[in-house]
């Protein structure tokens, strides 16, 4: 596995925000990364056009998950809520950026949330979004926005989880796919930022292949002055990979999204099951 040093650089980080308390942590994590990479921070708030459309319908009613109360959802109220939320999100980003002294901009766009995020992400080197857990168990599974982003985003995407910090060793999944090199580069950058040696999980069909992959990764890490802690999964399945990450990985997981296990619905299932932040590399 050869690597060109100029192949991967992060100059622009897009962070998708809403008004939730978790957004503060997302914004702060984005600001930390921007400071480390010397990147510009771009905040994004999407006014969901689907909701606006819904609010224009006579049947638009909002049900509170806490009180079960139902109330009319008007366009005016919704727009007011969007304005308020976008202001809050902007303030959050400004505070986070100021704390790390990084340049920032903030955009409010109107559109379908998923497509708006993916569209904006095309101009960024790294996209960060939060994956919030709602108190109701029924919504613990990934929301549709995250699911679509997981499957359709390009470049490098980081999905944060509210319970896991970035300040712990990262885990890199190496499957020998073409994106492996870029994933390694991302893992190295993140590890050096935290001055922590990464865990490397090798996915291979046999021990020899695994050994070769390990040697190659070891060599790259050594060049960067890092040492990795290696684990191997021979003939991995989605279940075994999920189990390993669930039980062993403590920090962010870097996933090169090209192999069979790390694409499409399998990827969604994996991300759904583990509670770690994930960095998707495409």
């Amino acid at each position: 596995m050869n690597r060109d040093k100029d192949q991967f650089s992060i100059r622009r980080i897009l962070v998708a925000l809403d008004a939730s308390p978790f957004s503060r942590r997302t914004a702060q994590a984005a600001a930390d990364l921007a400071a480390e990479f010397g990147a510009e921070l771009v905040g994004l708030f999407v006014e969901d056009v689907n909701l606006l459309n819904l609010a224009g319908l006579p049947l638009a009613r909002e049900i509170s998950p806490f009180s079960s109360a139902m109330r009319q959802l008007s366009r005016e109220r919704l727009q007011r809520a969007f304005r308020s939320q976008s202001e809050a999100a902007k303030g959050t980003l400004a505070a986070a950026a100021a704390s790390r002294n990084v340049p920032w901009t903030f955009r409010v766009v109107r559109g379908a949330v998923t497509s708006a995020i993916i569209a904006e992400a095309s101009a960024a080197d790294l996209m960060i979004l939060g994956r919030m857990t709602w108190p109701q168990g029924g919504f613990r599974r990934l929301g549709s926005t995250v699911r679509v982003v997981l499957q359709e985003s390009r470049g490098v995407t980081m999905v944060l989880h509210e319970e896991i910090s970035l300040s712990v060793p990262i885990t890199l999944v190496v499957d020998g796919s073409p994106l492996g090199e870029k994933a390694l580069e991302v893992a190295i950058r993140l590890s050096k930022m935290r001055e922590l040696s990464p865990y490397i999980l090798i996915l291979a069909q046999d021990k020899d292949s695994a050994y070769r992959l390990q040697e190659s990764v070891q060599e790259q890490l050594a060049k960067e002055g890092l040492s990795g802690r290696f684990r191997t999964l021979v003939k991995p399945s989605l279940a075994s990979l999920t189990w390993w990450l669930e039980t062993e990985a403590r920090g962010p997981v870097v996933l090169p999204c090209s192999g069979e296990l790390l694409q499409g619905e399998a990827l969604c299932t994996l991300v759904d099951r583990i509670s770690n932040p994930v960095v998707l590399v495409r």
Partner: protein
Amino acid sequence: MKVNPLPPEELFQECDIAQLNFETTDDLEELEGFVGQPRAAESLEFGTTIQHEGYNIFASGSSGTGKFRFVRRLLEEKAAKEPVPSDLCYVYNFKEPHKPCILVLPAGKGKGLARDMDTVIQELGNVLRAAFENEEYQNRRQSLAQELIERQQEAFEELQREAEQKQLRLLRTPAGFAFAPVRNGEVIPPDEFERLSEEQRRKVEQDAEELQQKTQKIFQRLPTWEREAREKLRQLNREITGYAIQPLLDEIRRRYSDLGGVTEYLNTVEEDIVHNVEALLSQDAGSGGQAMQVRAQQRLGSSPVDGSQSESPIVRRYKVNVIVDHSESEGVPVVYEDNPVYQNLLGRVEHIAHMGTLLTDFNMIRAGAIHRANGGYLILDALKLLTEPFAWEGLKRALRSREAKIESLGQRYSLISTISLEPEPVPLSIKVVLLGPPILYYLLRQFDPEFPKLFKVVADFDTVIDRTPEALETYSRLIAGIIKREQLRKFHRDAVARVIEQSARLVSDKEKLSIHLQSISDLIREADYWASQNGRDLVTREDVQQAIDAMVYRSDLLREKMQELIKRNTILIDTEGSKVGQVNGLSVISLGDFSFGRPSRITARIRLGKGELVDIEREVEMGGPIHSKGVLILAGFLGARYAMNRPLSLSASLVFEQSYSGVEGDSASSAELYALLSAISEIPIKQSLAVTGSVNQHGQIQPIGGVNEKIEGFFDICKARGLTGEQGVLIPASNVKNLMLRRDVVEAVKDGQFHIFAIETVDQGIELLTGVEAGDPDAEGNYPENSINGIVHRRLEALAEKEREFRGSEKE
């Protein structure tokens, strides 16, 4: 009726060393018990044996009589034979946490139970961790969690499926959820929706409404499902906990199976652990779980009390606070509380400052003296007890209610309104012995109505014993005991004899000995000191004398100053010649532990009058009531003896010259009478003599106090001016038994340089003082012409005649 001076042997009772059958105190056996006090011993025996309510004891006696040692020794001897009382422990009250429960356990069991519960606390974390990390538990727990998730997911997935079937989608809104009609994955815009047929629109609206209602119902059921899930988890936790801790507690239960209270307590502990296992596990999560600890405390409703920071407040509730431990006791306790402040006496609940507030729990309950002495005896100094605020009232309350209740003063008097602990009262079975001076006993008896009900027994301590040959032996052994106990040099029997003589001097009685142990012990210690200063290993009579002299020297600065004033004629005292109407009286100045005699000039002047006897001291309110009484007795005497058939037509004034402070006592009344008789008769009184003694209306001389000091006071003045052989002191004959005079006085008497006259009547006294016969009345009541009484009689008759003449001329 001539009165002879007392022979020297009457002036001092030497200790006959022939009666001391030992060479040094090393030859003597230490005295077991005490000298004297049979009455006190019997009272104490009675008071400590009788088992009825209120039979507590007041040991009444002067300070320094050895009451404390006597009482403690007697009680300790008695206590050693009685069975050891129970241990007292406070434990957490799981039903009412602010009212800790008392556990009364057989001696030594309290400490054992506390140790066992500490082991439980130490093991609890491991046991619970092991049980809850067990695979079986984890599987069952995950299964329960999964059950809830699946239940919720099932409901929402069903909802979403139904929505999809109806071309609707569940959307997240800024404040909740909503259903929207979709086409090609996007919400139908309003204008398109408007273009739908009315039937289509109605159908969509009906579907949405139906789903909205279903969603509402699901949301309403969510908390119930979660509650059910939590309850199932709790049940599981309890089951696992019970299983895990039962062996741990069973081991203790077996050990205390005969103690119902402990078994009951252990059952509540088990129940509590099972109910609060989540909190226990949270605190066990380590330092990272600090916030969870606090939450757990809040759930448990307990105070976060933790002085050490190392002990979790949650597990502190399982500790056992042994406030009284008798594991090493033999017999019942005998407790002396030297500082009987309210808290020391009745116990207290301590607090610690935590984040600006004061916190406590049952582990911070501390026993008072009544708890420690429970089942046995408590000795207290009455004066200290009475001078400590609220202590006396607290003790009486405890004795009255027969229970020891720990209450802070703030609580008791509602000074603070914050919640504190109300520990369960301890049943009290105790004998209290108060030590105090008699005056305190009488005052309490008179002014505190509860005192006679609670302290029915008085043990009176005497300060003297009879000076019998047997007593001399006992006394010598007492001295030997003090010497051995204090590891002093041995005393030669001469030294012991001198101590005994000084003991008699202390009580001013040849026939008695002092058992004021403090004074005797001080003398012995100081004699030992002087022996060491003199380079002797054996304490001799000289060392004892040196100790006595040094004691006097240290205290007699005032005496010296007073005598100097007399010697320099600032205070006028004649010790030679004769004067009409002037006599040397003697008084005693007491400086606490030291007294000395001081001569005072007493003068009398007379004039024509109506029988008034003016006591100038009384007129200016410098004379006490006893002194005034003495002077009024003189008027009675004069009237009865010289003016039976006519009015007493004189006015006389009496004064203590150069007296600038008060005069009290009647010991100068005979001197005043002599001055008066001299003034009336105009026969001078010898100034070489001094007088002490009170007189009654019949002219009999009565005993007085401080006779030795008075004689020595006048002797010192005479000696300083030079003894003439004429000087001396007149004392009441009844005071001869009190004479224990200084050696130099006795020597002067022996040499004929100084004289002590013991007189019984005024006539004897006036004869000695004037050298003129007093004169006895004949059958008709007339006195010899040239006798004192005859002259006085005549002068008074003449004064009466003058008064008659004076009255007659007034009428004309």
